[in-house]
């Protein structure tokens, strides 16, 4: 049985130059095939994580705390995967 779940997790931007184009593209790439919605919130704004153009409007410099939220099947895995990207500072494994 599939179950729609909502998962949330807080991450911190540890990139010196902030969340610029390349990390934004990694996020979009990561969530691309996820069936469901993924959004990233900062303060009162939120963007669609599947759209690199949307992500770029986040304006998230070094130290920004972001809230990731996913709604859909296996949302927890997705959120954790994204958090790992942030923890690795978007370096390839």
């Amino acid at each position, binding site marked *: 049985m599939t179950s729609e779940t909502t998962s949330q997790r807080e991450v911190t931007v540890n990139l010196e130059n902030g969340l610029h184009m*390349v990390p934004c593209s990694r996020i979009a790439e990561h969530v691309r095939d996820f069936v469901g919605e993924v959004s990233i919130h900062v303060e009162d704004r939120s963007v669609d994580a599947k759209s*690199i153009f949307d992500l770029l409007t986040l*304006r998230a410099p070094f130290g920004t705390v972001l809230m990731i939220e996913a709604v859909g099947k296996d949302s927890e895995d997705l959120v954790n995967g994204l958090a790992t990207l942030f923890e690795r500072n978007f370096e390839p494994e």
Partner: protein
Amino acid sequence: MHTKHGIAVSPGVAIGPAFVLGVEDFRIPHRYVSLDAVDAEIVRFRCAIENVCREISDNEKLASEQLGTQYGAIFAAHLQMARDPKLLGEVEALIRDNHYSPEFALSRVLGQYAKVLQNLGEMYKADRAIDLYDLEKRLLRQLLGERREELSHLTAPVIVLARDLTPSETATLPRQYVLGFATEVGGYTSHTAILAGALGIPAIVAVGDLVTDVSGGETVILDGVDGRIIVDPDEDTIAEYRQSEERARSVAQRLVSQRSLKSETADNTRVWLMGNIEFPEEAEHCKELGADGIGLYRTEFLYLESSREQTEEEHFEAYRNVVNSFPDQPVVIRTLDLGADKVPSQMPSLYPEGANPELGLRSIRLSLTDLERFKTQLRAILRVAQLGDVRIMFPLISSLLELRQAKSTLNDVMEDLEDKGVPFNSDVQVGMMVEVPSVPLLAEDFAREVDFFSIGTNDLIQYTLAVDRSNPAVAKYYNSADPAILRMIRMVVEAGEKHDVPVTVCGQMSSDPKYAPLLVGLGIRQLSATPYVIPQLKEVIRNLTIPQAESIAAHALKIELARDVETYLRGELNKLCPDLAK
């Protein structure tokens, strides 16, 4: 059968199937599509996206392997942009709901994104916008550009219809297959037009809507004499044109057969007829047509043709080819006249896009800014000047200071060559183009400092009448016969006579036979023209006497309106040489 009108820029008639070229330069051909086409246009858009994604992936792989993964990552980001669901959704919505063409929808959406990103401040500065521009270019190239390559795949004679052709595209048209061409934009004096004349390909420009109305394959008649294009002509019209084609050919043959005759008036005054050329290969053609030398060698095509900087040796070789065709006759080499509508691909950084490029950093101003490039050319000219009657001409001089700076650079180069012991000609004649209205006004001052003047009517008219010659909306205000222009020519001739400085006219005006009697009457004794009109000009001159020419000029100077001057001159040409009058 329907007829469209444009500006005739290269005479001749061609009949053949239409060949419609895609749009280059990413100008958007049509902003809207018809309702029934919406689905097909969306499919076309998706195909373009797919192709672009493939292209970007290839680049990513290449960049990662050859430059490192951090460079590959840039293309990975581009790939995510091309696949961005929001972008695709918005573009498709504009196509579906507003019936925008994919090209128009795409540049609208990406334009908005670029603006948003630019307003985000420091963090994303302008570089993001460049990435978007790159993506836009890729997509537009997919949507519009690929058809363009078909030009090199032609296997049968056609008439090319295009929104526009660049000068280098025109220069490389496969002549055996291109019977003629028509473009939607362009003007009488655009470089594409000049090249068409040089290549002898019948052409008309500024036709207006063309590529959207003709699908390709229809029979068209291209009338490069009257500036007409007839789509799907009926049998009678074709027969009529075939006949006049035949007549034109026999006149042309008769004229060419007179090439060994001297260019002098019926009362034995010599009027030198020289050729305007862009490519060294044209010099030989000028000689075959009976030219008395090269009055204007436009060297900028050396730069526009190649994707890299030309060396001194390459300049030297090109110039030597021209001098070899005319070892005993004048060869006037104009130094680089780049900028405005002529920007070579290898040096775009030098051309900040001012709002008003014709008034910006172009021509001699550019040479004086970039002295190294200028000196390279001057060295080559000075060296080749040992081999013949080579003369140097500076373009677009607007003040005495500029002229003196150019001449002092030339002196520096001479000293340098002397120090190095390189052989050159130190007695080379130095002249200038008269293209800016300040020069006729101060002609006497300039005359004291040059060996010759050459009036470039194209720019002189543009700057005097304040008309952008390539803008169809105002092109009608551009007129060689304007009384202001005639008086300026007169002023230059008078100053020249006083200081013993010969004056040539080398613009498009001298390539129109109806102006020849007027120019001779104004005192001009040297004309430099598009090669193919040289035989016609010679015919006019040989039928003319000096008193006749002077009375034509005196009458023309009294007429108040440009169009009346034109009508009068056309009538006079008809009396002198009915064969040549249109």
